[in-house]
């Protein structure tokens, strides 16, 4: 068990180092940091001096070690565009994206898992066919189109919900939250739905596939033959055994939620990390791009680590294997 955790931790550190290397290479080789910091009137000598001061003439490895050290101490450098510390810019935007992503994920699980179970148990039902067709269309409709449709319906035609921004926010410590005001929730609803719908279709399809797989297995047939009530059979015997893939989905979906939040945030002008990343690409603001990558990778690694630990907690077989 300890060995397993240590091994996973080691892998996580390795992934983070790889991402840091990527971010560093971006910073170092895409565009010239010195020409970004100086103007046209800066003399060649001054540029050389700045280059020396920044340590850009040192060996690549030395520079990378220094870069990683700075990252670990929370020094993320300065944006080329706004000249602000990148750490502050990102920290400002994290709450918006995390709240949006979490609510979207919850929507996708609360609707997706029951729908997946239902369509697996009644594969020939009319509702199943309708749901499957809807999800096929749902997967094919790009996130931004779903967003536009929701804006058009609820924002323009019906005029019920706001279509941009976060609405009323509350400051708790350093965390700007929109979860504590009615206005904030109203603003959150459309973006979260947009982000959740795509994930929902994935959840439903995967739960359905897993459930059908399990329902075919011998132990379920045996349990059916033994006359175990269907409710107990479906939810205790079958659904429990689909939990491992479902947890994997959550881990994987987190990545999707973060990535598609770029699109959703752009449609709804939601002031999160995704919008910041888009702006940084448009203005080739390399430090922000690099740090965004590192921060996202950190969340990825964290979520995957938790998922792996949950496997061990849920699946007794993994524990046995460790003991053997």
């Amino acid at each position: 068990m300890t060995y397993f955790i240590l091994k996973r931790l080691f892998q996580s550190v390795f992934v983070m180092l790889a991402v840091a290397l990527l971010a560093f290479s971006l910073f170092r080789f895409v565009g010239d940091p010195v020409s970004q910091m100086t103007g046209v009137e800066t003399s060649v000598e001054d540029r050389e001096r700045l280059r020396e001061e920044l340590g850009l003439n040192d060996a690549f490895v030395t520079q990378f070690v220094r870069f990683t050290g700075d990252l670990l101490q929370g020094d993320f450098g300065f944006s080329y565009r706004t000249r602000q510390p990148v750490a502050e810019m990102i920290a400002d935007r994290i709450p918006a994206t995390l709240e949006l992503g979490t609510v979207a994920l919850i929507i996708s699980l609360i609707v997706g898992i029951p729908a997946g179970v239902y369509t697996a148990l009644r594969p020939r039902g009319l509702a199943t066919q309708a749901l499957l067709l809807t999800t096929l269309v749902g997967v094919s409709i790009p996130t931004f189109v779903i967003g536009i449709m929701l804006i058009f319906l609820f924002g323009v035609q019906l005029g019920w919900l706001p279509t941009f921004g976060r609405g009323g926010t509350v400051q708790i410590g350093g965390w700007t939250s929109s979860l504590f005001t009615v206005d904030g929730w109203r603003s959150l609803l459309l973006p979260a739905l947009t982000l959740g719908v795509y994930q929902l279709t994935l959840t439903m399809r995967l739960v359905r596939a897993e459930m059908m797989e399990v329902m075919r297995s011998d132990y379920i047939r045996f349990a059916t033959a033994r006359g175990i009530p269907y409710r107990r059979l479906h939810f205790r015997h079958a659904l429990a055994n689909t939990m491992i893939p479902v947890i994997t989905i959550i881990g994987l979906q987190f990545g999707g939620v973060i990535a598609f939040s770029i699109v959703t945030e752009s449609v709804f002008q939601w002031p999160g990390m995704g919008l910041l990343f888009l702006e940084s690409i448009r203005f080739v603001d390399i430090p922000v791009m690099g740090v965004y990558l590192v921060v996202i990778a950190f969340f990825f690694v964290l979520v995957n680590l938790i998922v792996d630990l949950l496997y061990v907690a849920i699946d007794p077989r993994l524990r046995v294997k460790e003991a053997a």
Partner: protein
Amino acid sequence: MLARLWDSDGFWAFRHSPAAILAALVAILILGGALLAPWIARSNPYDLTTFSLIDGLLPPVWETGGNARFLLGTDDQGRDMVSAILYGARLSLLIGLMAMLIASVLGVGLGLAAGYFGGRFDAVVMRIADVQLALPAILTALLIDGIARGLLPPSMLENLRVVVLTLAIALSLWVNFARTARASTFVERNKEYVQAAMIMGQHPLRVMFWHVLPNILGPLLVIMTVDLASAILLEATLSFLGIGLPADSPSLGTLIRIGMQFLLSGEWWILWVPTLFLVALVVSINILGDFLRDVFNPRLR
């Protein structure tokens, strides 16, 4: 090969699946319209002389004030919407197809080699694939696009927009091909015909592409269809975000981006015509992909 496909179970299933036939018809219609755009479109969106501001903001023909010359209305510049979506689809399909083809050549090549040789090469390719799979395609494409912006001088970048976009999409989609090709190659390489070819001393490249590849085409065809849809969606999304193609060479995504400005002002057709067109295209390709998946993997039916 083609004759065998014609008589196969797959074609029988196709003839008996109304959804697949309908999807194929829609896809072929759109593809045909895109290919023939220069001949059937009444105005060329790239050519300022073929449209005029006087015709601006006309609604579709069935609305009051509609003009029979412009079946689906015009945008604020007086561009015919029908012509705009045909030319837009032309660009979207070109980028989507090219990106899918590049991704498939790259992915299948790497996957075949990884499955065939195994060992260290396999480990390296698959680790890269794993890392990239953890990042959603759109993030990878955005990143590659951002790097290209930083590396290329602005003047060059303008001319290379389509190439950069195609490569960014291709490089974010190769993983699917590589994984599928590798998994199928693993199965095939232990079969007798491959073993025999290897013992006969045939060149590994010949064994891979001549013997193994034809036998793993089925699952690859499914991925090609699904990834074509993904590539078109990616292009549309990037263009919509304003990262992809500029407004003067409008793909479907760019057209939707332009249409968004009219979301609140009542000229709904400028937004919804390209949007519905894009959705119809992608849905029909996905239905075909789903159909192919069922054909090649009957257990799922």
